[in-house]
């Protein structure tokens, strides 16, 4: 087994159990996330129940004293202001994304993988920059043995067909060399197309907590490698303890 496969195994357990990854990196753009004000203490309880935890580079450095039972750590390698809405204290004037970490920096941080957003529906230059970054990180990751996870984010105003846009983003991620693709639930037909197209492991990001159960079931039935929980799962509506329970029950159901 090469080092890339070895690191992938840290995130994606063997067949029979599906992975659950939690993305906490939105703090890069949104500041302290509800419930994660004391980042390392708050996550300590849930860490053994997750398979992967996505962090900003700074928070990844602060998560020490991990044991072999804890989740693998992944690092966010880009920054975007597109998570901010109009009510945010610093609303975005134009959609922007920049790279914040190279692949060898991610390896030195001890990450088991890199996470990149693939933004669709914004300015043409934003999409082009995402594609170029994905290709370059995938190639660098192959050299270093570090997997690249690409999160498809068709959130821009130019998106005219949301389900098809997810298909497009998943295709771009695959063709760029992603080792794992994260897709928001695109609707049943597009989900089937994506499942048939992707020849790499893929994770589902559900549209909401209310729809999560049915969307998870459908995705697992189509061969999803696991579930991706973003920052919207954090906070008062879904305290970490409850989140941990849900993760646990998901593992049991999928096992």
């Amino acid at each position: 087994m090469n080092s890339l496969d070895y690191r992938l195994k840290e995130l994606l357990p063997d067949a029979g159990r599906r992975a659950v990854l939690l993305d906490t990196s939105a703090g890069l753009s949104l500041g302290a996330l509800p419930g994660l004000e004391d980042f390392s203490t708050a996550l300590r309880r849930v860490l053994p129940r997750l398979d992967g935890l996505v962090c900003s580079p700074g928070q990844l450095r602060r998560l020490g004293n991990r044991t072999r039972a804890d989740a693998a750590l992944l690092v966010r390698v880009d920054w975007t202001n597109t998570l901010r809405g109009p009510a945010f204290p610093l609303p975005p004037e134009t959609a922007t994304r920049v790279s914040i970490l190279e692949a060898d920096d991610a390896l030195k941080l001890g990450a088991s993988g890199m996470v990149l957003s693939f933004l669709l529906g914004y300015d043409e230059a934003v999409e082009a920059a995402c594609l170029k970054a994905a290709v370059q990180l995938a190639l660098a990751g192959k050299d270093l043995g570090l997997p690249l996870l690409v999160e498809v984010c068709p959130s821009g105003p130019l998106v005219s067909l949301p389900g098809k846009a997810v298909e497009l983003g998943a295709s771009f991620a695959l063709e760029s060399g992603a080792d794992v693709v994260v897709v928001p639930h695109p609707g049943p037909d597009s989900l089937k197309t994506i499942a048939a197209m992707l020849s790499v492991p893929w994770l589902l990001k559900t549209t909401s907590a209310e729809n999560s159960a049915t969307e998870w079931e459908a995705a697992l039935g189509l061969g999803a490698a696991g579930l991706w929980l973003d920052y919207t799962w954090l906070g008062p509506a879904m305290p970490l303890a409850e989140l941990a329970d849900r993760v646990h029950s998901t593992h049991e159901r999928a096992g």
Partner: protein
Amino acid sequence: MDSGLSARLERLFNRHGDGRAVCVAADHGYMSDVTPNVVNLRSIAEAVVRGGVDGILLSPGQAIRLASLFRGRDGPALIVRADWMNMPRLGGANVTNAVPQRHLFHQKVLTAEQALKLGATAITIYLFLGYDDRVEAAGIESCAHFASECRKAGLPCIMEPLAVGGHVNGTNIVDLLTLGARMCVELGANALKIPYTGDVDSFARLVSIAQVPVLVLGGERLNNDRDVLELFAEGLEANCVGCLMGRNVTNAPDPEKLIRQLGKIAHEGYSVDEAERGWKREQPADRKPGKELER
């Protein structure tokens, strides 16, 4: 000539000793909306390899994933798409256009050295003419950089001039393609991938002006396989050295069969009728020798 460049040109264009190549472009998932040929890429790639294809054009990610298809001396040549553009998604008229694009965007994505590490025998890049001055100038700069990198790496650079945009119309498109062909050669292209101009005479003039091997492409899927074979036969009549066809092969009902038929026309001197029939009455004098590889 640099030995690496020479060896790779031979691998691509002289697999059958005739200076010709039948190649398939399978990089659509890198730039277009998702269609069945994108979803079923692996099975289509396996089919065209069984059909005897001489080269396959892939995106960097698929080049990694489908690397096993290119192994061995019987394997086809890997051609890697080294740039990226959004042209197929321009405008909102197409109902399947999930994320319509307002402006043409074209960029260099890979270096020649990175393409070599992927196992490439050649790379392809676009040159857009007719959109606006900025896009044309950026394309020239990009092609010039690629040509320089490829020369240093010993990697054949296949340039693809395309006439797209508001300055293109029915009366000037052949002139623009002919202009683009020559501009690419002046920039350092080792070969060209170019749309058929619609008739043998104008395409023969383009090929003659190009002075490097020319691969004809098919564009949008034609009505049926016979139209594809006829287009290719006309291209050969105009002295192109082969084809680099995408959707006309990958969306064909039977890509393996179509590649086999194209190969019969290119390498065994079959007519279109004979290729469709699958056998040829032996007439050695009919055999049209391939064009000697330009260096």
